[in-house]
């Protein structure tokens, strides 16, 4: 009964329609105009051969490459290879990162131990690990997943830790004054308070780990978007390179949008920011 009453409680937020968000706001209009203008200049420069079109490709050539890739289905194995490595690796990195972050936040000594390692893996360029990882895990999927985990864990852990630290003393005090156990405090005070931070960590981590997958595929692979991009580059197929970049950009935006939705879902309690 209480559950059914819930939807009535929140003020009605008008549902946004795509048409409105795409064309309604000044911001969107100018944003789209900017893209269109740049594409037009690009196309013109390429058509007139002001710059060799083989070097810079052109929007129409990229579109043609896209249509070709999707029509023949050639894109799917590559997309699948990249995505599966990323999803598995990022899931592990997120779990590990959140766990390390929570433990570091709760246990001072654990933090001292973890801190130096997290900082070290952060400062050292993750990609420098590639040769060693290949030695250890071979050139298959495993080494790529490990690279993603190495890259992503730091961002999630550091942000989670910041969230736990920010779990304001007064809320912990309230919880304790009601005799809440440590596990209950974790579940009811520390985690909910840290969610915005954790999501920030996931956002940062997701962008960096996509880069890691692509680079790993550059270095050693026979499949994946990174492989497709580097191979096309070698064959001077710039349209296909650009197409690969576009796919990655779209992927990145998609992930960011999904995380944004999760964030809003958890953040129902946050008063609207005006």
């Amino acid at each position, binding site marked *: 009964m209480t559950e059914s009453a819930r939807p009535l409680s929140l*003020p009605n937020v008008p549902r946004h329609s795509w048409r409105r968000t795409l064309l309604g706001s000044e911001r969107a209009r100018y944003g789209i105009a900017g893209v269109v203008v740049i594409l037009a200049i690009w196309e013109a420069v390429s058509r007139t051969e002001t710059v060799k079109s083989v070097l810079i490709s052109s929007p129409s050539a990229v579109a043609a490459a896209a249509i070709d890739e999707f029509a023949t289905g050639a894109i799917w194995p590559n997309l699948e290879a990249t995505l599966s490595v990323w999803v598995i690796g990022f899931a592990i990195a997120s779990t590990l990162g959140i766990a390390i972050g929570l433990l570091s936040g709760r246990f001072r000594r654990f933090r001292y131990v973890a801190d130096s390692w997290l900082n070290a893996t952060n400062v050292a360029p993750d990609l420098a690990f590639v040769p060693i990882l290949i030695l250890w895990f071979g050139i298959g999927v495993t080494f790529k997943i490990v690279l993603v985990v190495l890259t992503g864990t730091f961002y999630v852990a550091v942000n989670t830790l910041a969230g736990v630290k920010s779990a304001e003393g007064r809320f912990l005090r309230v*919880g304790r*004054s009601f005799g809440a156990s440590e596990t*209950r405090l974790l579940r009811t005070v520390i985690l*909910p*308070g840290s969610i915005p931070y954790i999501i920030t960590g996931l956002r940062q981590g997701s962008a960096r780990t996509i880069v890691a997958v692509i680079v790993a595929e550059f270095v050693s692979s026979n499949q994946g978007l990174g492989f497709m991009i580097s191979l096309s580059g070698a064959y001077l197929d710039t349209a296909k390179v650009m197409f690969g970049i576009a796919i990655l950009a779209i992927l990145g935006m998609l992930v960011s949008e999904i995380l944004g939705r999760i964030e809003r879902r958890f953040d129902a*309690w*946050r008063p609207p920011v005006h």
Partner: protein
Amino acid sequence: MVFEEASLFPWYTALRNCAYGLECQGMDRREAEKRAQRLLEMVGLSGFEHHYPGELSVGMQQRANLARAIAVDPEVLLMDEPFAALDAQTRELMQSELLGIWAQTKKTVVFITHQIDEAIYLSDRVIVMSARPGRIIDDVTVGLGRPRPLEIKRSREFAALEERIWGQLFTEVKRNDESEREILPSATSR
């Protein structure tokens, strides 16, 4: 415990906040919420059970806060300047409502405040404390009958009590001020 700042968990609704203490004691969530519901009604928050603290006014937050503290049925309720952040009118209203709630529960309440009239209006006994070091300088028994309407604040008896406490605090404040000037002569020489 009821603190000065509304310390409701911003990520829970008023109802879940109110049920929190009961759940900590091991009560099953459904039952805890049922009981919390009744307490929210008592403090005049029915209809706002599913609002998040951010959607409530400061006064309403303090009511929910109070309901949460009463819910666990403590032996003594400690209220640390709970109305300090409220505007004068809301504060008066909350004072008389607190008395109403108290009349239903008859809990012992230790109430900390800087407002002399608030202390007298609410209490049976006012303990006046000095500043640094905090020592008891007076123990005043308030003989006003109950229930106490707000108008009682304008009665002669009330005024007499107010004067007595204010007199003591005044000498205390003055003495403190003077001793501080002695320690910090630069403050006066400017």
